[in-house]
């Protein structure tokens, strides 16, 4: 498991952890029922507060990505990756629709839009 914390980012630290763990679960880097580090150990390793890692794990558990067994630890939950992907794709579509609407408003063409997307996607 890889987690990198940025202290300068506007994104709260707990959210950085949530997103990075989610990403690794979706990409299969973290496998189903794999044991995650304890919240206290993760806090120590990342040099952040216990409350922050606790909040990240709580969030991940609420969203169904991990399961916590009292006294044993937290595991990557068994989840339907297809379904997760589908919901994400739907989200992308919604946001794109919004972007296209704005584009049409100010007369940005499809070609320009595609170029834009390409540049942003490739970073």
């Amino acid at each position, binding site marked *: 498991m890889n987690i990198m914390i940025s*202290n300068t980012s506007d994104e709260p630290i*707990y959210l950085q952890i949530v997103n990075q763990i989610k990403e690794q679960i979706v990409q299969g880097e973290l496998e189903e029922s794999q044991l995650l580090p304890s919240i*206290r150990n993760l806090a*120590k390793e990342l*040099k952040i*507060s216990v*409350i*922050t890692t606790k909040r990240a794990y709580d969030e991940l558990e609420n969203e169904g990505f991990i399961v916590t067994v009292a006294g044993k630890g937290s595991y990557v939950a068994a989840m339907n990756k297809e379904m997760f992907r589908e919901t994400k794709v739907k989200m992308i579509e919604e946001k794109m629709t919004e972007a296209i609407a704005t584009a049409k408003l100010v007369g940005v063409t499809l070609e320009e839009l595609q170029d834009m997307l390409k540049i942003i996607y490739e970073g």
Partner: protein
Amino acid sequence: MENILEISNLSKNYKDFSLKGIDIALEKGYIMGFIGPNGSGKSTTIKLMMNLIKKDSGTIKIFGLDNDQNNLAIKERIGFVYDENHFYEELTVKEMKDVISPFYRRWDESVFKQYAKDFELPLNKEIKNLSKGMKMKFSLAIALSHHAELFIMDEPTSGLDPLVRSELLEVLQSLLQDENKSIFFSTHITSDLDKIADFITLIHNGEIILSKTKDELLEEYCLVKGSKKLLSGHRPENLIGLKQNDYGFEALSSSKKEIIKQFGDSVMIEKPTLEDIMVFYTRRGERRVSSY
């Protein structure tokens, strides 16, 4: 959640300073940073917790026990580190340890030996010849060697170099691997706490200004900067430590949401550090400090 430390309505009056009925609660398993400028009441609070001075009113409960009635039982389970050396300077490290250790029923010599090795404590050197950092490490080693459950630290990092400070913070974090241990850490160097503190309590002029999780604090609060003309017509009660100069204003706000609602995009909003929060809360209004 079980509170390992519970202070309620605690007061102590001196001629020129008083602690005005403060409340503090710390859950088991966490570290609380107790911040405030010099003279704000941090040491007075800690002295009251340690029974070094007598309170005028209020209660202090540690491990659920009243600290007046269970003085010794509580102290068995406390590890303390103070800002200044109060050990007998004339004794060697080993002699001092031998004097202290018999008083702790749960003293663990093997643990002490391990820390002495890790910290490279010079056992046969007189305490007066130790560096400031080494004195703190000795104090820490004593605090860690009797299976204490609550660690009370009064400005442990003041006057120490960054390397020793980060070593201390590392030790504290590894202590918290045990969820039954808690740390109460007072400091005016807030950067020590930016990373590892779970809770932050800010004290100023003997009053608790705020006490909440560090994450909440840093997410809810914000720094606002903008041009002065924006100030007219806005309610200033949201702006803490408001300061104006010829080119604009800056202030701290306890609600980022509220600021966005009020000012929208017309101001610059920044994430505060703990130091910002402390400085904006405690600085003296419009008065400026300059050199003459």
